[in-house]
């Protein structure tokens, strides 16, 4: 609710206006029956000719038109508020989601983020739209009805009021029970979205293994779970309506009974009880309206809370003030100074999509190295030895628990994020091609001219297949780049990394799908045309890192070898072994 109020704040005067207009519209609407009554009871019986009748019908006609105009105006204005505030909520939510730290992203989970962005914001939007207009009529009828009955016969009205505690309890019950229930519905929706998304992204594997029916079952379970929860929530939510009505009606029966006694005692008129009936209907409709509002509110509230959870996440990995950062021990382009790192900062916290548990070995353990400007570093090591984590720290997607990382003689924590990232041209291991033109995928909103793009494509060995396509750089990539082969995708990604002439070029297993010939040409092009860039290459193939100035060998997060190829051949047994297996194999 806090979130909704926060986003409605800019529109508070406008909303006030909407409510005033709606109030007037409700007023003229409620006036209609009285005019009609007046017409029937007083005008028609006393009319000498048709004119007064025509005149009063004219009044009704006019009231009808005014009511319509007022109500439509109020409704449309409320639509505007809903549109604008939902737009703002989604904008901010998307912005926050896009800028979450790696840790936060792991915690919330992608499927949940997606449904918070969409179905949760729709819930809130619908609520904002309805509350502005419905929120007027119902209370007016309720309060108006109560006020009128109180003035008519306080004693009898108080009987109705004894049902108030029941209503208050029910409303509290709805809010107390409803929010967590709808929260649970949305959580199950997350699971449903997750299962569906997984089956879509893994469709080839699913079909290859013939697991269609298994996936159907898995999804079916999530579907059934969600349906059960939805029914449960709806049932709880549909309880208060009939109960409140029943209690009010019991109150009314009491009014009739006690009223009859009072009439007998001469304390009240029968007409008063009759009028009570009419106004009682008004109260009842008001209560029903309020009940609907509360139902919607608990649903919207659950959604708003979920949105708030993300929007209010503190921005992590913000730049530190210069004096808080560590002083660089040198001015090399890249320095890792006794860095140790683990993905779970607080291992006791259960997090989505992460390993849980109390003890985990460190992902990186006491890593130190330096790369001079324009120098090159190769990283090699077994699967899971922490190679990619080095990139994650270098670009500050995570902060290390111990030690410091320096880029260009400054602690990475001192940089504004974009300032740091602009130095890099990077290809991640499982990098993405977006469903957009090749040009957009390469240029990526940067200041890259066509010439730069084409040169980069040339260097990345991509120009050949790009130019063979009809629209060349305007050719559209399919979703996840499905219309390119694995090797073509990698070459596009490398083109992206090279296009802006980065200061630091990072290739994380970026050429694994390239044949050796292309890979060799690529290395040559990088050496010749991007020699001034500091280069970090992670690879499985020793030939990809062999010519680097320095190579580090990782094993289970520890650095077990560091030096040039020649040095490592002498000093590092593991490196020798890798070399031997890869290079001598052919000659066996």
């Amino acid at each position, binding site marked *: 609710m806090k979130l909704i109020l926060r986003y409605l704040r800019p529109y508070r005067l406008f909303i006030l206006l909407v409510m005033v207009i709606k109030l007037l519209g409700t007023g003229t*609407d409620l006036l209609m029956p009285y005019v*009609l009554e007046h017409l*029937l009871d007083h005008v028609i019986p006393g*009319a000498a000719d048709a004119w007064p009748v025509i005149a009063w019908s004219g009044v*009704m006609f006019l009231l*009808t038109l005014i*009511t*319509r105009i007022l109500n*439509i105006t109020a*409704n*449309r204005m409320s639509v505007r508020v809903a549109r604008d505030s939902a737009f703002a909520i989604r904008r901010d939510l998307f*912005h926050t989601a*896009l800028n979450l730290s790696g840790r936060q992203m792991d915690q919330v*989970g992608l499927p949940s983020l*997606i449904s918070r962005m*969409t*179905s949760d914001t729709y819930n809130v939007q619908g609520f904002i739209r309805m509350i502005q207009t419905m929120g007027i009529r119902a209370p007016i009828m309720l309060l108006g009805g109560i006020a009128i009955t109180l003035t008519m016969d306080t004693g009898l009205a108080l009987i109705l009021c004894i049902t108030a505690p029941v209503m208050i309890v029910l409303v509290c019950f709805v809010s107390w029970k409803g929010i967590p229930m709808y929260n649970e519905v949305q959580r199950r929706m997350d699971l*449903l979205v997750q299962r*569906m*998304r*997984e089956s*879509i992204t*893994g469709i080839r594997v699913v*079909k290859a*293994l013939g697991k269609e029916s298994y*996936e*159907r079952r898995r999804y*079916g379970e999530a*579907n*059934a779970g969600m*349906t059960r929860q939805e029914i449960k929530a709806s049932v709880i939510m549909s*309880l208060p309506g*009939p109960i409140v009505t029943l209690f009010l*009606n*019991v109150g009314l029966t009491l009014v*009739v009974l006690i009223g009859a006694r009072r009439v007998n005692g001469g304390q009240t008129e*029968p007409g008063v*009880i*009759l009028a009570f009936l009419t106004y009682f209907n008004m109260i009842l409709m008001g209560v029903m309206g309020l009940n609907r509002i509360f139902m919607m509110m608990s649903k919207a509230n659950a959604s708003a809370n979920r949105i708030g959870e993300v929007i209010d996440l503190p921005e992590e990995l913000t730049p530190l003030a210069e004096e808080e950062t560590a002083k660089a021990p040198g001015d090399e382009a890249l320095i890792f100074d006794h860095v140790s790192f683990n993905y779970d900062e607080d291992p006791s916290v259960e997090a989505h999509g992460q390993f*849980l*548990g109390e003890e985990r070995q460190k992902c990186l353990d006491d890593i130190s190295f330096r790369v001079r400007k324009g120098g090159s570093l190769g990283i090699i090591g*077994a699967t*899971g030895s922490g190679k990619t984590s080095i990139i994650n720290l270098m670009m500050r997607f995570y902060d290390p628990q111990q030690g410091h990382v320096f880029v260009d003689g400054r602690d990475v924590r001192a940089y504004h*994020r974009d300032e740091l990232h602009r130095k890099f041209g990077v290809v*991640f291991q499982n990098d993405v091609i977006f*469903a957009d033109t090749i040009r957009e995928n390469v240029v*990526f*909103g940067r200041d890259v001219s066509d010439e730069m793009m084409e040169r980069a494509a040339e260097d990345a060995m991509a120009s050949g297949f790009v130019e063979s396509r009809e629209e060349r750089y305007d050719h559209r990539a399919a979703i996840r780049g499905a*219309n390119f082969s*694995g*090797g*073509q995708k990698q070459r596009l990604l490398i083109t992206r990394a090279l296009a802006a002439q980065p200061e630091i070029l990072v290739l994380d297993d970026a050429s*694994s799908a*390239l*044949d*050796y*010939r292309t890979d*060799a040409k690529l290395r040559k092009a990088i050496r010749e045309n991007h020699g001034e860039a500091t280069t970090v290459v992670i690879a*499985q193939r020793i*030939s990809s890192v062999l010519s680097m100035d320095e190579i580090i060998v990782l094993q289970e997060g520890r650095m077990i070898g560091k030096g040039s190829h020649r040095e490592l051949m002498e000093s590092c047994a593991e490196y020798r072994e890798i070399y031997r297996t890869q290079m001598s194999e052919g000659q066996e």
Partner: protein
Amino acid sequence: MARDTVMKKPKDTRGALRRLLRYLGPWKYVIAGIVVLSLFGNLLNLWGPSLAGDAIREAAAGPGKVNFDAVSRDAGLMLLCYVGSAVLGFGISLMMTVISKRVARRMRQDVFDKLMLLPVGFFDRHQAGDVISRVSYDIDVISTSLATDIVQILSSVVTVVGSLVMMIAISLPLSALTLVTVPVSVIYTVYMRKKTQPRYAKRSRCYGTMNGFVEEMLSGQKTILAYAYENRVDERFDSINKDSADAFRDAEHYGVTLGPTMTAINNLGLSLIALLGGILFLNGQMDLGRMSSFVLYSRKFAGPINAIAEVFNELFSALAASERVFSLLDEEEESADAPEARMLTKIRGDVSVEHVNFGYEDGKTILHDLNLEAPAGKLTAIVGPTGAGKTTIINLLMRFYDPNSGVIRIDGQEIRTAVRRSVRSAYAMVLQDTWVFHGTIFENIAYGKENATMEEVVAAAKAARIHPFIMRLPQGYDTVISEDGGNISKGQKQLLTIARAMLYDAPMLILDEATSNVDTATEREIQKAMRELMKQKTCFVIAHRLSTIENADQILVLRDGDVVEQGTHRQLMERKGFYHQMYAAQFE
């Protein structure tokens, strides 16, 4: 992006309504019951106030003369009425809730089941997020509408007809006025449907596009941040967000006029009744009592029509949403197996590809007249530069696609005449793109084999050299992993998928760059295990590290969709052709 996510435009509203009603088919008796019950409920609701009126009339006898027995009896009946109507009301909404949620569940399942039947190419053309939006948004809209609208409409019809009969009984000329108001209401509703439904459809589409965008961008979050592209993405989201917000406003802008307009038309009717009634009275053709009760009934008549107007709005948006759901359900499926299609059993593993031509798009042939013989138990390697069509061959072998011309046979039987399921299950497959789902490591490895035991899973993991890593995890094989979780490396995922394939016992094996992200030492060990696995099996291997395929029984060298060379490693090396060049490039 929009181009890719918009499906063929749905138009057939009547068809959509019919299909929607078909979903209610299984519940038709329950719904009929609900209608009868709601009729009862309405009667009780009418009877209650009239009993109250009776009681008051008794009380009207005046002070000291009230017949308390009669009053008490009436009050008792009132209470009974109200309890009855509360119970009925609750019961009806309960049943409708259950029905609508069950229908939604059925639809969600149908959508998913359909997805499992679609060709893999569908998922290259449609954003996962857009497909998900049909489940998370469109079906939700439908279910919300079903829960209330059907009963509302059906039970209102009863009241409307009843009131109309009463009105005609009282005064035929006055009733004739409904000949004005009812057609006007109907015409206006039809007119609004024309206005709003396309707009609701547009809103559904926009939400789908937005969902698709959010899903795509958030899955590429790291890349976006690495290139400081986030502001551009924010901008693009702004425009998509704006489209969605505008689509919401456009639809609601018209939608919210329906309610007030219906009220206005009915009030207009009242003014006309007053006018005409007044004139009739003045002419002595109508007395005041009949006039009053006529007005009473015409207001009863108007009430449900107003309610229906609100309901119609929801119904229009539900129809628009259902068109999107049905258009997905109408997508062309993978061609069904021919009725005479045979199961492939006791597969020896002779695979032959004869004169196959194939292209993903018309006019763009990727494979030209491909011929290939893979004898049972032999290892066939497919090599060539990226984009030569290697993965395409796999797509054809697995029947993800069917060739444009030419045939593929397994043991002499054309695979198009075999049951598709049995063709796919003939192969175990490891792909370049790894895929794991949210679940435990055990579940992920056991995915291909139902009822796999822990021993089998451990053996597969050992063969894939991932067992030691798993054992180091605090929860071992029960550790939960997920696709977008940050804590498992690409190489480890690849090892998991290899273990999965090893456990999946199929007579043939396809390895498409299966170890590209795995370090070479591990790769060699895996190969040892693979060799064990591949013994007696027909194998297809795509690899860039040519050293890994040297002992293949035959090597197919592919270039631009043509087989340019074919033979064993030794033969090809001796030819000093393209293969020789590629091989030499590894050691440059």
